[in-house]
């Protein structure tokens, strides 16, 4: 794979495809209104704006004819738990994740990612739906959401009514900045199954400073502990492939034998799961070293606790 430009991998667009392309602005007040406006697939969706604004100022955002601000759509708000699942409205901010006892108690890796997310100013504005749709390989919430088997809910208007489909987050990303969302669809929620009893999870992000850094690599890890055996192991990596990824080979290696014997095979498996590139933040070699050493440290901690 050839190196990508910095930050999102999006090349500059022609000036007439930037903000100059916007002909109308809409701020729908309901989901029905929002999906109706999306019928022709010619709207750029604005939520927190924290990615869209810098992308527009640096000429990396391609705008549609309509700029649609979805912040006033009430159906996109709120964190709601049911018996076996939690539904995060797409407009849930990172601060709201951080302030949620449910997230802290049941989705530790997601809470940790929210805690490490940029800065307070950013956390107050940035949304989970925006983080997902921006589809950065280094998106902070994406790695833990993969660990928790999240699904995305997409809503569009079909024959005058709102129609929903859901798909696993792991299938949603198709490349840097690219997703399976159709132009007529709005990402309305993220659904995350409650993890099994005894499931613990950890998120680790490596950057050059704690705040406001885009990850050189990120690792999400979760499992149910049974002595030194790990069951239901889930591992995800960020910033080491064109999209955030689940690490199937690493998971299989960790499930096949008890700790600490499983560690070295898992590190070898992780090297096969990842496909890092060299860019402004780290070389491919350095990313491989980071994944190996950070994953080893995380697994050593699990072994000793």
């Amino acid at each position, binding site marked *: 794979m050839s190196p990508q430009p910095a930050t999102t991998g999006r090349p500059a667009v022609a000036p007439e495809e930037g903000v*100059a392309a916007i002909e109308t602005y809409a701020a729908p007040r309901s989901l029905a209104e929002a999906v109706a406006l999306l019928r022709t697939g010619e709207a750029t969706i604005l939520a927190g704006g924290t990615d869209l604004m810098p992308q527009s100022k640096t000429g990396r955002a391609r705008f549609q004819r309509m*700029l649609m601000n979805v912040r006033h759509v009430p159906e996109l708000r709120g964190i709601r738990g049911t018996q076996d699942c939690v539904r995060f409205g797409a407009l849930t901010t990172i601060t709201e994740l951080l302030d949620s006892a449910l997230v802290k108690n049941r989705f530790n890796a997601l809470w940790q990612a929210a805690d490490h997310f940029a800065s307070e100013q950013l956390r*107050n*504005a940035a949304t989970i739906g925006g983080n997902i749709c921006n589809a950065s390989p280094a998106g902070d919430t994406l790695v833990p959401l993969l660990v928790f088997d999240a699904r995305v809910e997409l809503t569009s208007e079909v024959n005058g009514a709102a129609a929903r489909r859901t798909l696993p987050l792991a299938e949603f990303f198709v490349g840097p900045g690219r997703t399976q969302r159709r132009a007529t669809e709005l990402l309305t929620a993220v659904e995350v199954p409650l993890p099994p009893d005894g499931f613990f999870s950890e998120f680790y992000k490596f950057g050059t400073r704690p*705040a406001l850094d885009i990850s050189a690599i990120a690792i999400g890890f979760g499992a149910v502990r049974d002595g030194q055996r790990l069951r239901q192991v889930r591992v995800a990596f960020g910033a080491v492939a064109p999209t955030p990824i689940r690490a199937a080979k690493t998971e299989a290696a960790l499930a096949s034998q008890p700790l600490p014997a499983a560690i070295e095979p898992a590190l070898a498996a992780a090297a096969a799961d990842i496909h890092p590139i060299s860019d402004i933040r780290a070389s491919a070699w350095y990313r491989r070293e980071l994944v190996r050493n950070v994953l080893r440290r995380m697994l050593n901690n699990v072994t000793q606790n």
Partner: protein
Amino acid sequence: MSPKIDVAFKLNGVDVRTTVSPGMSALEMLRDELHLTGTKYGCGEGECGACTINVDGLSANACLMFAADCHGREIVTIEGLVSDPRTEALKKSFVAYGAVQCGFCTPGFVMQARNLLEKVRSPTPEQIRRGIEGNLCRCTGYKKIVEAISEAAAASS
């Protein structure tokens, strides 16, 4: 031809109406349309916090916010805090501790420090450092800023 968008919101306690273009940031609107220049443009990417404002009670980077998205919201800038006692305490302690050198980052730091002190009355130095993680200062090395915020907390609690 880019469309004009009418926005109406509360700015420093006063109802304002103005017209903005779709790509305009809240920072550009505040500085260039409404002539409130206390909120600074540092990086334009949310990295430096010089443009920190308060939106509906929460701190935010004005450079990352779309001006159109200000509609219906309550926005407070550094200019709106002239008679705020907590801000006054911060102002005094920033001067007393030499926490201002070139001064460019100062309005953002004061906004963010006030926001921290609203939530945590007597923050530890660690809580202060965490609270200002979204603000950069290239002059002071932060020590004086952390001390000044600590002193302002003691003075106003």
